């Protein structure tokens, strides 16, 4: 297990290095410059140039790249061009907010979709299966901004059950914060339910139709024991991998949901930095997103390995 972990960490570090080069290169081929983006099209060209010089944007690309990477390695994520503040607090604050939303959404979507998927798998071909599959697929097909706006219209404007904006007043307690996060979390449930439930359903069906389940059943084990020990334990392994990949998305990929519900998360931080050509903020925030994806995938792999010895033994062999 130790070697497995070490290999994965080394692989993650190499991936991050490549990611830093790719992100830096891609962002810097974007047309436009930060001085112009910040000061607007009406600003005097000399003033724009002077601002670009002050920001360090006029330096050669390699200088800027190594300055950025060097800073990140020392824990310094640089300074935002647009906001003239350190990127670190901007990113960590956004990450903290995103994590709250992700946690809330996760705590709703994982039990719901696992229960739905397993139930559909157990009732394969019957009404429950068809209903769950159809509802899930419909949710996947609806864009977040449509389902989000629909939920706001229904629950915030028409019935006034929940607030239409995700951010609670300053100093709000946990319950109040959770109350504000209900509608964006439900939006994410709509998006993710079908995806996770389908994986859980397929895993459940595979496990039910496997030889070991048939053997366990023929041995005369009670149905609940068969389900718990054999079907769920084996059937949910692929689902764990799927769920782990959604952690990164839930924390960093929610720009649309965050914008709809006026929530200051990491996704909207990145989206809003693009038009301003705020390269240091973009680079650092995307790098953090990369790290998040890797950590969540790694955790998923570790859980999978713990659940399924073949994975870790295979990797060590």
């Amino acid at each position, binding site marked *: 297990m130790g070697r497995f972990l070490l290999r994965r960490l080394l692989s993650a570090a190499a991936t991050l290095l490549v990611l830093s080069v790719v992100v830096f290169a891609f962002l810097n081929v974007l*047309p436009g410059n930060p001085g112009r983006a*910040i000061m607007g*099209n009406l600003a005097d*060209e000399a003033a*724009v140039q*002077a601002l670009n010089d002050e920001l360090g944007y006029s330096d050669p690309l390699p200088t800027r790249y190594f300055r950025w990477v060097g800073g990140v390695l020392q824990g310094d994520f640089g300074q935002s061009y*647009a906001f003239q503040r350190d990127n670190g607090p901007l990113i960590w604050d956004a990450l903290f907010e995103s994590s709250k939303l992700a946690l809330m959404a996760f705590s709703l979507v994982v039990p719901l979709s696992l229960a739905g998927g397993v139930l559909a798998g157990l009732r394969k071909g019957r009404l429950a299966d068809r209903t769950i599959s159809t509802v899930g697929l419909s949710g996947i097909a609806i864009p977040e901004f449509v389902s989000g706006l629909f939920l706001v219209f229904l629950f915030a404007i028409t019935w006034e059950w929940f*607030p239409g904006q995700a951010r609670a007043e300053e100093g709000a307690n946990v319950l109040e914060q959770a109350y504000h996060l209900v509608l964006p979390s439900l939006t994410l449930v709509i998006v993710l339910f079908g995806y996770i439930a389908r994986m859980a359903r397929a895993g459940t069906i595979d496990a039910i139709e496997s030889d070991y389940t048939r053997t366990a059943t023929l041995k005369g084990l009670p149905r609940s024991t068969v389900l718990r020990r054999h079907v769920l334990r084996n059937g949910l392994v692929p689902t764990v991998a799927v769920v782990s990949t959604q952690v990164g998305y839930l924390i960093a990929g929610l720009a649309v949901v965050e914008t709809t519900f006026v929530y200051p998360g990491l996704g*909207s931080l990145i989206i809003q930095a693009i*038009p301003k050509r705020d390269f240091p903020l973009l680079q650092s925030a995307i790098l953090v997103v990369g790290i998040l994806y890797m950590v969540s995938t790694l955790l998923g792999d570790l859980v999978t390995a713990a659940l399924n010895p073949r994975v870790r033994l295979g990797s060590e062999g």
Partner: protein
Amino acid sequence: MRIRSRVRTAPVDPNPSGGHCAMDRYRRLDLARRSMSEIENDTVDEYLRGNLSRRQFVARASVLGMSGGLVAFLAACGDDDSTTTTTKAGATTAAGATTTAAGATTAAPKPGGTVKIGCTAPSASIDPVKVGDLGGLIVLYQVGDYLTFSGSDLVLRPGIAEKWEPTGAKDGKEWTFTIRQGVKFHDGTALTPDDVVATFDRLADPANKSNALSVFKGVLTKGNVKANGQNVVFTLDAPNGNFPYLVSTDNYNAIIVKKDYASDFETKPIGTGPWKLEKYTPKQGASFVRNPDYWGTKPTFDRAEFTFYADEAALVLGLQSGAVDIAHAVSIAGGKPLAGGYSPNLIPSTAHRQLHMRVDQDPFKDKRTRQAVALTLNRPEIIKGLFDGKADLGNDSPFAPAYPSTDKSVAQRAQDLAKAKSLLAAAGQDKGFDIQLNAIKAQEVPDYATLVQNAVKPLGINVKTVVQDAGEFYGDAVFGKSPWLDATMGIVDYGHRGVPNVFLGAPLLSDGTWNSAHFKNSTYDGLVKDYFSALDVASQKTVSKKIQELLLDETPIVFAYFFNYTSWSKKDVTGYGITGMGQLDLTKAKKG
């Protein structure tokens, strides 16, 4: 062109046909006119002859700093178009025609409480020297004051300057502003003329990377602003008849800050405005508390909380779900779901789009081709479709109908496909051509590009539209590195200005830095120079007519419309005002 100098004889009868301007008013006017300068008398003449509407007269009189009482008296003698604007200062206005924009009533507002506003987010750090976007200037406006306030009616009103006038040779090269006494900064120190001098020196100094350089370049040089007792004297690089607008809310960077200001506004937000900044969180919001020492009308509410929105649909939902009381600056189309349940507050502006055609490149080298394109547009239908009719017709020059100096006798260009076809044939393009149209991704611009695409189809012109986000479209914003400035055909957005100087300059002068049409015309350049230096409306109109006719003939740029914005509020929220630039004035806002 110099100001007309002529011997004044008898005053023009203010109301020859009788009516409500009775004889005693006539005598009072006669007496008053004896103390007026030549320029002021010219302006009164233009008004009394009917060449200026009341709104335009009040606007022009305000630029010259004419006596408020006299202007109000004269305005009462004229036509009856109404003026709806606001000033947070609440001072007696030079124009004497202040009202509130959102239907304020005479009932005394109940003080206290919090007003919640949703608006677009400042896209960069808040620094008076550098701010260049709506979100930023909305925040600045709450905290700061300007020498003059420019209302959405284009009327200038006193701010930190109690009065102003052209001095010296009175040719518009020297302007003197009298600074209000008793004004305190938020830290308790008194505002002095030296603070005003330092503010403008800072803005005019190229070393400071000021966004106001786009306004002051060629107009004001650092070191040419001097304090003289309670006055501040501006000596300009060249005569400028519209200078008081350039130190108004129109030039949003020009809030008066302390002379030792050190680009630290976010940590030390010290201005003289009606609100003190309590907390500012980038991308999220800002909160303000009432400034009890404000020199003008003190805010009705104790607090104002701003929530920043990155998306217009979310802003509209914010109002609908009760999260905010006012949704500020919503496009006409975006605000449609609010009709009926909420109160609109229309913001008249001279904001517009410029559809350029490069005069130095085929297929637009021949001006007949450019004219043909302009003639295909059904402008009233475009306005109806894009703005629900809430916009003014453009006549292919920067002279919006709202400007007092616009000569409305110039015929409006209207759709004429037959003429367009014959012009295109005469230009040897009767079979049409293929062309790419680069358009900025901003509000209705992509839709406008599609309308242009459809409009020119009957001429055989196949337009391929390329819509680009602002960063991509502006590029480096210099020739050779910018689709905005390099495209053969393009559409760009321009915000409101109280006077057309900026629109006449950079986009159209031969050496203009935003001359996307690559239009070079020495006659035009000379006319614009004359226009800038003209002080009285008659002189401005004489020149503007020539400019309008020249631009209609050359058609380097199609100005199809000048559009308006709307703010929406809950029905019980009234009294708030909006400047032409879109700054939000909450001093007289009230609930219930």
